[in-house]
């Protein structure tokens, strides 16, 4: 598995100006009456990429997927797949296949016939179909269930049949619409890793639509965070998490503390902020906004330290408060620290040892602090 990891780490065609995108979405707009589902959206997806469209329901991610599959036509703009425009090409002539959220298995056909359906449409010889179906059944470990009908399968098995069916034709691109939404948590986590391995093994391009940020972070090479028909940020999971480009993305992915303030100055790659109630912040930032501009710093809870003593750099990046709530999660503990002005800051610490001699308790006066590179300076 180590080699796989190193391959993945070096996989970054989007950073290479010489590589050509496999799917190009160019200025696509989709309107339903007056409602704009997708708004002048442009995206590039590269070969063998595991790409996730992430957003709340109604953000247009499913509409975009349905336009890739051919079930909807863009109102304006163009989608190019492997150098060819998809305009006017019906779904049954596109080299893409889709795995549906509801699985959409054919209820009157056996598992075997469900998987063979697409191959039969291509007029593949019978012997080849049988061989391919057997191969797909093996891939999803359902060899024993080939003669079952969909209603004779459990939810997880149905999900596998749907996956096998959509992969049977060896599509250039597999579209997955909330592929794991109907599974329970444990099965979902297992299946996430199986999907990743499968995608690596087959060398396909996957485009997955999900509203579950953990799922997107786990599986995807890159994530497009969408809102109101627009893409807010496209980046790797780590970039999205550690360097969100806006307050929306910072807030949408994971937990975050936002410290608002005004820019007081900048020097040597650091920005000084005058926080609310005079709380001074110094934060690393590649850009240097003009002095006096309203700004904010986003710091993730796990990057905030909680302690009884003020840190050496106090009062910069440090502020006093009292412990308001403690959530013990086993692997980590979440503290809600209430500042003097009533704001509540979330901090979490890993429980690396089994027992602490003198643990922090409710209502204790504490200092919260964070490093100069712990957060992101947000423009808006």
């Amino acid at each position, binding site marked *: 598995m180590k080699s796989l990891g190193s391959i993945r780490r070096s996989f970054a065609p989007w950073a290479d100006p010489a590589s050509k995108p496999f799917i190009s979405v160019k200025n696509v707009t989709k309107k339903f009456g007056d409602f704009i589902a997708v708004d002048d959206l442009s995206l590039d997806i590269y070969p063998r990429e595991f790409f996730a469209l992430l957003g709340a329901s109604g953000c247009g991610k499913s509409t975009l997927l349905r336009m890739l599959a051919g079930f909807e036509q863009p109102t304006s703009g163009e989608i190019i797949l492997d150098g060819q425009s998809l305009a006017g090409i019906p*779904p*049954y002539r596109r080299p893409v*296949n889709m795995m549906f959220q509801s699985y*959409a298995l*054919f209820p009157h056909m056996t598992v075997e016939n469900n998987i063979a359906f697409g191959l039969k449409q*291509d007029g593949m010889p019978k012997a080849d179909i049988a061989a391919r179906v057997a191969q797909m059944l093996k891939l999803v470990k359902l060899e024993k269930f080939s003669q079952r009908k969909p209603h004779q399968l*459990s939810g997880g098995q149905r999900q596998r049949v749907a996956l096998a069916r959509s992969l049977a034709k060896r599509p250039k691109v597999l579209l997955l619409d909330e592929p794991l939404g109907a599974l329970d948590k444990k099965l979902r986590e297992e299946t996430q890793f199986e999907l990743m391995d499968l995608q690596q093994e087959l060398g396909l391009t996957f485009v997955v639509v999900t509203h579950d940020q953990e799922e997107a972070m786990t599986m995807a090479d890159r994530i497009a965070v969408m809102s109101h028909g627009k893409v807010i940020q496209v980046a790797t999971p780590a970039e999205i998490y550690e360097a969100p480009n806006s307050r929306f993305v910072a807030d949408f992915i994971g937990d975050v503390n936002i410290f608002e303030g005004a820019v007081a100055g900048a020097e040597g790659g650091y920005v000084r902020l005058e926080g609310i109630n005079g709380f001074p912040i110094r934060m690393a930032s590649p850009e240097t906004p003009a002095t006096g501009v309203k700004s904010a710093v986003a710091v993730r809870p796990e990057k905030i330290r909680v302690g009884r003593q003020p840190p050496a750099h106090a009062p910069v990046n440090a502020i006093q408060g009292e412990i308001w709530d403690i959530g013990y999660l086993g692997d980590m503990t979440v503290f809600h620290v209430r500042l003097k002005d009533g704001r509540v800051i979330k901090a979490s610490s890993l429980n690396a040892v089994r027992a602490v001699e003198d643990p922090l308790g409710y209502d204790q006066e504490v200092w919260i602090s964070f490093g100069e590179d712990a957060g992101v300076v947000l423009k808006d």
Partner: protein
Amino acid sequence: MGNWSRFNIASIVLGFGFLYLPIVLLVIFSFNESKLVTVWAGFSTKWYAQLWHNQALLDAAWVTIRVALLSATCATVLGTLAALALVRYTRFRGRMLFSGMVYAPLVMPEVITGLSLLLLFVAIGLDRGFWTITLAHITFTMCFVAVVVQSRLLSFDQSIEEAALDLGATPVRTFFAITLPVIAPAVFSGWVLAFTLSLDDLVISSFTTGPGATTLPMKIYSQVRLGVTPEINAICTILIGVVAIGVVVASIVTKQREAQRDRDERAAFAQT
């Protein structure tokens, strides 16, 4: 099962008596030896034997069956198409009006349907007979089929059609390979409904018939006006028998299928 109070028993006896006494009487008297319908004179099946020699009655039965088979089949095709159009193309203007218009014939008095069809046939100069009856039956049974199929289509998961398209099936192939097999039970019950409606229709047939095309209900009705004969009782008993067997078989098959499906689903979830 301790709830068999006298009141309950009385209710059941009265209710079922009300429903079935006339039919039971008809069946009993079809086995009557006597020619007088209301006087019992011993058991006999001679009226059934005599049926086979009543050429007029047999002819009428044959016309009825042909009309019913043909009209039910045409009505099923048209009704299914209408249902598909109304359920699928939700965004055309005046859809509500069209939906309403499909339902209207269900409540339209038969006399009016019959009369309007008669006027139409006369106006366009169509010779009345077998074909006009068939056309009329298609007209009034089609909406029943449309209603039955429409209610099935409302609970139809359209993503399975999209999945078929996605896997490379053309829309026509998708319809025959996916949509039709899945809604087949509803289409079949629509056909059965249309068939039985056509089989026992009297009013519309009477309006639209011509010389040489007499259906069984019309024949029975005209004979009864001259007096009820045990022969009529016999043929009615046969009709009741046919319908009853059909209903019982259909419900047993449905029950067994449901039970099998339940067992399968429980088995599937038990092993996970």
